[in-house]
């Protein structure tokens, strides 16, 4: 299994958990993002995810490395699915193991926030009354706080 992957098929959670299981881990926190039907009163029919696949995997790996350097002993695996996703399908799954529990929660939370900042993946919402690539809307400020790191810049 690749520990940082963009996939087109259903994401299985067990292989991720197995990947981060370790004799020195006491805690595994997984985060699973699923397709929610209702958002602010609007009904989603299905989603379509697109990625700049090679770069997206590279950025997932970067996030994992950021975590491993921040939390000694952490092991990380992240898989994001692309293509057509139905309600309740798993879009992203993150697993982090650490020796103690606090770090596993923090690191897993960090991973999902970072994914939303720097990983080139796009979501197209298909509602009852239309469709739109999320992120393009004028109401959303582009890259507010978590601007992607530029080459050569300090992280």
């Amino acid at each position, binding site marked *: 299994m690749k520990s940082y992957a963009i996939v087109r098929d259903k994401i299985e959670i067990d292989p991720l958990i197995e990947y981060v299981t370790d004799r020195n881990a006491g805690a595994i926190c997984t985060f699973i*993002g699923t397709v929610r039907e209702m958002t602010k009163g609007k009904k989603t029919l299905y989603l379509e*995810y*697109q*990625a*700049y696949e*090679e*770069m*997206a995997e*590279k950025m997932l790996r970067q996030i994992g490395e950021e975590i491993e350097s921040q939390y000694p002993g952490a092991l990380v695996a992240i898989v*994001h699915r692309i293509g057509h996703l139905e309600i309740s399908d798993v*879009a*992203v799954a993150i697993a982090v193991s650490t020796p103690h529990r606090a770090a596993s929660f923090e690191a897993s939370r960090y991973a*999902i926030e970072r*994914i*939303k*900042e*720097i*990983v*080139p*993946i*796009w*979501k*197209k919402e298909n509602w009852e009354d239309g469709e739109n*690539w*999320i*992120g*393009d809307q*004028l109401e*959303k400020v*582009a*890259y507010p706080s978590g601007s*992607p*790191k*530029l*080459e050569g810049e300090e992280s």
Partner: protein
Amino acid sequence: MIRVLLFAGMRELVGKDHILLPVEMGKATVQEIKQWIGDQFPQTKDILMKSMCAVNQNYAREDQVVTDQDEIAFIPPVSGG
């Protein structure tokens, strides 16, 4: 020729998953490429303004110089997760 990859809303607005720049732009800054695309495909101007550019799969500054040996992509605001 420099090849620029397009994604998401940009891909839909242009109707293609990449753009080939004219041969005379064999070497250009990210800023110049952005300008040229905006001129050729005015419908992309709004998104271009909000997009980052990736060169060889790293986020790049506007003043970075690229050639046809590099992999260029415009990254509209991401929405994964």
